[in-house]
């Protein structure tokens, strides 16, 4: 994975894992790699990965079983919410960027439709 060097690494890993979870590349209930394994996979400091798991646990996206490891939650609503939230973030960013270009929401929607038709 190519990281942006000027953005917190733990946030970039969180985004990647959230994406994998919402796309079911990481299944509900699946055991995640250990901190050490994941830090070697991403070639980052192990404390960075510990922080990733802590934050994901606070957001109730993963949970830790003592001595067993870290797992993706199985609750379908949580996982659906996660996908919705990610979609919302993308859309919000899109709307803000278009506003910065002085393009109205209506105009944006028309442009979207046009691009989709032309594809």
């Amino acid at each position, binding site marked *: 994975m190519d990281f942006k*060097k*000027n953005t917190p690494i733990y946030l970039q890993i969180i985004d990647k894992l959230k994406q994998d979870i919402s796309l079911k590349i990481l299944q509900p209930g699946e055991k995640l790699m250990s901190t050490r394994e994941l830090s070697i996979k991403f*070639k980052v*400091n192990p404390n*960075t990965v510990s922080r990733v798991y802590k934050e994901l646990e606070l957001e109730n996206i993963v949970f830790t079983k003592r001595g067993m490891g870290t797992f993706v939650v199985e609750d379908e609503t949580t996982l659906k919410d996660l996908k919705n939230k990610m979609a919302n973030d993308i859309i919000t960013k899109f709307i803000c960027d278009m506003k910065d270009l002085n393009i109205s929401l209506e105009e944006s929607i028309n442009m979207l439709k046009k691009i989709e038709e032309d594809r």
Partner: protein
Amino acid sequence: MKNLIINNLTKGYFKKKALNNFSYSFKKGIVYGLIGPNGSGKTTLMKTIYGLVKPTKGSLSFNNNKISFKTRKNIAFMPTEDIFIPSLTALDILKFYNNNFEDFSLEKAYQILENMKLSLDEKIETFSTGMKMRLKVTLCLARNVEFYMFDEPLNGIDIISKDLIKNTIISMTTKDNTILISSHALNEMELILEQVLFLNEGSLIRDINLEELRDTENKSLESVYWEVYNV
């Protein structure tokens, strides 16, 4: 938890000061980077921590013991110099270390050597520069100590060796040890370092937590390097 405490360390060679009033407290569980142009004092600092260089002024203590040849039992140091006899094999060298360091673990050394993709029975004279570096890093990490120091572990080697060395260092990082790495390879090191010390003319001029830097200033290690040294 702090383990190595350095206060007002100064090392003078005649009129020139290799270290100038350096103070710092190192903690367990952290990988530190030591950054600075050539001649800024990085190697002198490591050699002083290892008890090879005597301070002109100031104090160093490791877990409340004054730094001396005795504290060397709890600190491992990989110097830049080549230390191998060409006709020996990797196994000969592991055995030599095993006989000379009480805390050396042959079992751990075999494991690391395997991760480093080196074989035991080849002679050092057939090794490339990258393979020699991998062996040097292995020898340092195979000791069971609390504090590991590597002087330029990525200098002048191929990218495969760099990758193997980085992976090994990551896999040996624990909550109970401290790792200090000097390097010029900022881009390659910045993801495995947590805290970075910038040296200039023997003085500590900045001390940065990299995730905090990315979070609060949206900056990379390299951009800070240019700021710090003003070039």
